[in-house]
């Protein structure tokens, strides 16, 4: 008699779980089996969200991965295409994005880029080191003409919101920001302009910029 009772309990538990899932507020989707035919939201739910924010909001938890919420659509699109053609070879791009992007169509890339660009961006927080933030502000807004360093504001906007094809830097993880700057400087990450600019920046200046941008 024990076996049927145990089986019934199990079936009941599964049925209960399934019922409560049906009542969950978020509508389940049928994920198409072929990743090349997934729409943007299915891709976000199935793949992107594992690193860039579990709920699909584009706000990543670990600084190993960038926050994408509010990022410029055109920038995400450009980077995804670079990943797909292996045109970006910094270590994280190789480890994660070469594979993820390898089968994406132009249409999927456009859709994912649009999705994340429409998510509410993360707001900055007041600096705990105003002196350092002020130093970063001067560098960000004015550059350093005597060393031929262009002001960041020209390409990334007054509030780090991004301009044209140049990415939003506000609301980004601080460690991520610093790591990318260092990787530009060491030419691990491709981008001629950023490689040239960062060659002239010291570690302290990168830290100052990070401190300032994090307030945006």
């Amino acid at each position, binding site marked *: 008699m024990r076996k049927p009772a145990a089986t019934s309990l199990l079936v009941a538990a599964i049925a209960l779980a399934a019922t409560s*899932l049906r009542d*969950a507020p978020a509508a*389940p989707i049928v994920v198409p*089996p072929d990743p090349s035919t997934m729409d943007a939201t299915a891709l976000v739910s199935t793949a992107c969200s594992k690193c860039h924010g*579990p709920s699909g909001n584009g706000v990543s938890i*670990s600084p190993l991965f960038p926050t994408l919420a509010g990022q410029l659509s055109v920038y995400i699109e450009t980077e995804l295409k670079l990943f797909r053609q292996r045109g970006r070879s910094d270590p994280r791009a190789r*480890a994660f994005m070469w594979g993820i992007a390898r089968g994406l169509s132009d249409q999927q890339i456009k859709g994912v880029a649009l999705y994340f660009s429409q998510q509410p961006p993360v707001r900055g927080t007041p600096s705990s080191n105003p002196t350092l933030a002020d130093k970063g502000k001067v560098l960000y807004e004015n550059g350093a003409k005597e060393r031929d360093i262009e002001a960041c504001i020209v390409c990334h906007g007054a509030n780090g919101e991004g301009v044209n094809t140049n990415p939003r830097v506000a609301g980004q993880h601080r460690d991520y920001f610093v790591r990318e700057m260092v990787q530009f400087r060491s030419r691990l990450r491709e981008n001629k302009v950023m490689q040239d600019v960062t060659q002239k920046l010291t570690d302290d200046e990168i830290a100052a910029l990070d401190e300032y941008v994090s307030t945006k």
Partner: protein
Amino acid sequence: MTYATSGHATVNVVRLGALATFLLGGSALMLVSTPARAIPPFARQTGLACEACHTVPPELTPFGRRFKLNGYTLTTRSPLVSDTDDHKKNTVWLTDLPGIAVLAQIGYDHYDRAPPDSGQPYPAHAQSDTFQFADQFSLAYAGAISDHVGGWLQLTFNQEAGSVGIDNIDLRYTDHTFDNKWVWGLTANNYPTFQDVWNGFGSYTIPNFNTTTLWSSGVAGAALSGPIINALGPGNVAGLGAYVFYDDSLYFEFSEYHSAVAGTGTTPVVDSTNLSVNGGAVDRFAPYGRIAYERDWGYHSAEIGASAMYIYRIPSVGYISQQQKLAAAAAGETYTPAQTFYPGVSNRYTDLSVDWDYQYNGDHNIYGFLGHVTHERQQNNPQLVAATFTGASSPIYTNPTDTLTQFLATAEYFYDRHYGGLVSFTRTTGTSDPLAYGGNGSPANQYMVFELDYIPWMNFRFLLQYNAYQVVANNQNPFNLNHANFPNSPGFPNVKASDNNTWVLGLWMDF
């Protein structure tokens, strides 16, 4: 001598059998199992490097845990063959690249003191050095099987067993809501805890290189004591479970296991004739429940969890098959009915665990603190307990109820996923049961593992390990057991726990 006859010799046989069977955990059974690791099929399927899912294999990152909870189905490859019905549901889904992996473990052991010779009395001894080439060799299918179905199916050659057999199997059906608030799944597996995604307890406990010890190598014919949940690996049970992962943090699981004894000469029917396989069999049902809470922030991930398993288990001690009964009768020998075990003559185990898994997965630095405390309550079958025993021979337990507690804590550090190491401490204590454990009845043992790792590529791991034993109680010590095997020999002098200390040079690779 696999069946009991009357007389003093019988007691020794039963007692040694009891040791071989009841001193579980860290046992040879565990070594049959090769845990799933960072394996190339997952990388080929997803296009992701190993570091996406692992800090250092087999330990999972938060991403790796979600990959597993989603049934290994994440793929960036289009299926070669697929078809859908009118409702856009798949009717067939076949990958273009079957997820085949080769896994190999090679180990070179050096025992600090040359172990006893199992066939000769002291001063004869075995070699101090052994080379397992390969200690384990597996073929596995791993990855997506359909859009919502994935699995891990493994076949392993084990040097100590000398045979190829079914190893870990985990088949899953999973789904999730768009926002991943709810991830849920069904798992059919043959190893309780194999389905778990944290590394503080269960089949993936760190440290995870399966060292060949004197116990597992069969020199002593016994094993270190430990909770029975550690010994229900492949070949003993199979079960079905359902789980829910809510809000990326809260995990609930309920699974139910039944006996699935597999091995040479077994039949689908589990009765007194095949209880000797794997040291016994689960009787009736064995429910397993699991709850865990994970919180991730920045580079940090912390988990605290608990599990419970309730097991009826028929021991194989004193087992007599029908054929042996007949043979004994034909030879005019007697046997003891009370020691012929069969379904119904089972002990009841309640294993309760608390586990933790903290992980810092930084850009260059990785470190973690993991472990568990498992408390086991073993209610022995009255037919086998001294106070209520009615058979013609000896009982095999002193107490109606025995308890056992195991504590394991590990600290690890890795730099750039190339260099690292760990220190692990395990201590097991329990009630004294002289009949079950021999000597003064203590099941206690305590040991530490020191490990240095070099990982040139993520799928190649070289390690140098030192296993240092501080406590090895009574007849668990192989050097004592050699004495027991040869009662007229002086035996090994000055037997200490540290006699068992072992150096291990190991290589793990998969491709």
